[in-house]
């Protein structure tokens, strides 16, 4: 159960397992309730099919002794809800509210219909001459804490990296800061997950996660490029 989502996609960030954990917890709880309710529902239909000579019972459901059949599950549902809420809020706090200090900050700019990723270059500082801006490809170093500064030039977009379990809308006029720490090398999809016009389905990008050496080599291979850096 714990690896429900990992059957489909690897978990490639530090918090991916936490999010998968909430999903697994909810799956167990609602799976239990859902299956139980369906089994009872279908079981009752089978058990109480019309039989000749048998009259239905007269049950108002308003006596104390009858209402307990609703009251007990009611309290159990409430208890399960509390469990789900606690688990969800803890993970949410970790992913969206409590940002660890960054090793590196990247700028992510969405527009109709492309992504621009501005990497800080060798000096590890944004807004300097050695920034490396790349369209539709985000280059990261594994096991490093990143902050992203998410912007939009035109309409709403959403920055989603499914293997990180990360999603955040981009809003024109705002800069939204978030974080992630990649834990696996490889190349994965980046999606736009907010309807952004005709080209919404044509806005794919890739994230390339490399070892420290590989990433450093990539940075060295880029000379500072004034024209691209100007898009920041």
């Amino acid at each position, binding site marked *: 159960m714990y690896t429900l989502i990992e059957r489909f996609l690897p978990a490639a960030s530090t918090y991916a397992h936490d999010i998968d954990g909430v999903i697994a917890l909810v799956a167990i709880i609602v799976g239990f309730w859902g299956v139980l309710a369906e089994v009872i529902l279908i079981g009752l239909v089978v058990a109480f099919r019309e039989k000749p000579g048998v009259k239905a019972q007269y049950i108002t459901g*308003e006596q104390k002794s009858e209402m307990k059949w609703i009251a007990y599950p009611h309290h159990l549902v409430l208890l399960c809800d509390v469990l789900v809420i606690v688990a969800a809020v803890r993970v*949410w706090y970790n992913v969206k509210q409590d940002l660890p200090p960054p090793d590196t900050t990247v700028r992510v700019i969405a527009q109709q219909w492309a992504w621009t990723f501005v990497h800080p270059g060798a000096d590890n500082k944004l807004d300097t001459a050695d920034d490396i801006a790349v369209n539709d490809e985000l280059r990261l170093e594994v096991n490093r804490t990143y902050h992203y500064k998410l912007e939009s030039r035109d309409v709403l977009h959403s920055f989603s990296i499914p293997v990180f379990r990360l999603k955040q809308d981009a809003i024109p006029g705002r800069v939204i800061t978030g974080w992630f720490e990649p834990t696996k090398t490889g190349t994965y999809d980046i999606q736009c997950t907010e309807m952004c016009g005709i080209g919404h389905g044509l806005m*794919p990008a890739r994230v390339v996660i490399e070892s420290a050496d590989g990433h450093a080599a990539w940075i060295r291979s880029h000379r500072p490029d004034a024209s691209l850096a100007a898009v920041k």
Partner: protein
Amino acid sequence: MATPIHEHHGEGDHGAHAHDDHHHDPGFVQKYLWSTDHKMIAMQYLFTGMFMAIIGGYMAYVFRVHLAYPGVHVPGFGQVNPAEYNSLVTNHGTIMIFWVAMPVLIAALGNYLIPLMIGCDDMVFPRLNRLSYQIFLLSAIVLIAGFFVEGGAFGGAWTSYPPLSAKAQYNNTPLGAPIWLVAVALEFIAFLLGGINFVTTAMNSRAPGMKMFDMPIVIWMIVIASILFMASVGPLFAGAIMLFFDQTVGTGFFDPNKGGDPILWQHLFWFFGHPEVYVVLLPALGVVAEVITTFSRKKLFGYRTVLFTSFATGLLSFFVWAHHQFIAGIDPRMANVFTVTTVLISVPIAEMMFVYIATLYGGSIRLTTPMLWALSFLVAFLIGGVTGIFLGASGADIYFHDTYFVLAHFHYTFVPIAILAVFCAVTYWYPKMFGRMMNETLGKIHFWLTFVPFNGIFIPLFILGLGGQHRRIWSYENFPELSRPEYYSLRHFASISLIIMLVSQLIFIFNFFWSLKAGKVAGKNPWRANTLEWTADSPPPHGNWKELPTCYRGPYEYSVPGRESDYWPQDEKS
């Protein structure tokens, strides 16, 4: 003067006018648009809603075939380009919610059932009622007109988020976007008028002896739903006017470059949009309550429990809207508040499910076609309900937001509401509406060929959602993680299931029209049910009863001990 529609389809004395295609009938306006009879207005809403459902279903067919077989020439449409794809998904959603679920569940059922079930001759504001339908019809025409203007129909999703929806330079539908908005606004006006009528009628025109807690649950549900609608639509209506100004005269209510805020629209939209889910859910639950009590010959388990959980759900539904916006850029602390309210709304809804299941206990269950629909509603809605918890839990929603998991979840709520419960209602009240029984064998074949493929569509889509497939994407070819062959197998399965489900609706259409003439004559009370509509003639004449009924008891007195018969109509003195 109103003419019950059955005469029109039968061998009545209408001569040349007696043919099925009333849309070209010269007397159309006088007879069918200008009627103030609640039953005729209900029929107008029902048939308009069913017609719009065919359009919405056709759209689903086109984009599902395209998604399963990208680039294919879709029979009956052609190749689907990205702009067309966006228009199709946008309008499929808009139509199915605003022009199918709303008119059929609230307007058609409300108009038909309220006077008949509370024992009065008509709605208290019959002319307001007529105006409501006329505005609704106009709104439907305006919406469809959007497909025939330059630039095509709006394609910015049914949520119409600005800045995309606000500027033609972004959405490339300079006329389509404002037309869509005007259509939606007109539709709101129509339902506001209807809502005033439903609440006023149910509060004031009940038969002598019918106390508030003697009203059938479905009437309560329509009343609560109308109140929810009226209380939530105001902010969105204001938002729609602001967005219309942004689109047409260049104001900047939602434009950050002019000091506006795009997120404001999302709050206005979802402040309405989430109660709206319950606006259509509650009447559907009401229908199911009527049908399962009748066909299990049981009193509803805890009438007041159902009512109080409905009140609780309605009230709570005003405080959950931002769960649609967890990752939209709202203050992340706010997500914690809305996670709590959202997950807690499962309590009253679960309780309602328990009540319905408990009602079956000790019953004498008859699996007629309406009962099959009612039970299938419970089976499917349970799945829709529990999968909602994944999305209400903020931590899990980060992954699931805007994936096919969300899409499958809300189709597991809206299909039970707008399809299963509507078929339940139509098959249950058909004998009352038209005086004849529908064919049970065809009804059951139609049921299985709708319910099984429905699951066949959305179970694969749940799985694709788990795999991270995001919504509203024209083609997955560009996403290596989503273009694996096994994912295409799931898409094929879903699309083929949809085609089977759509084609099966021909069985229903045939059964519907064939039974008008050939069905067994129903009589007043073919299901041996308690509520007052079954004491009127089938179909009820103008004015419903020669002498209005008096009510002596609650609506669910089935199998009362010590009585010979297993039902006890509300109007029977002893």
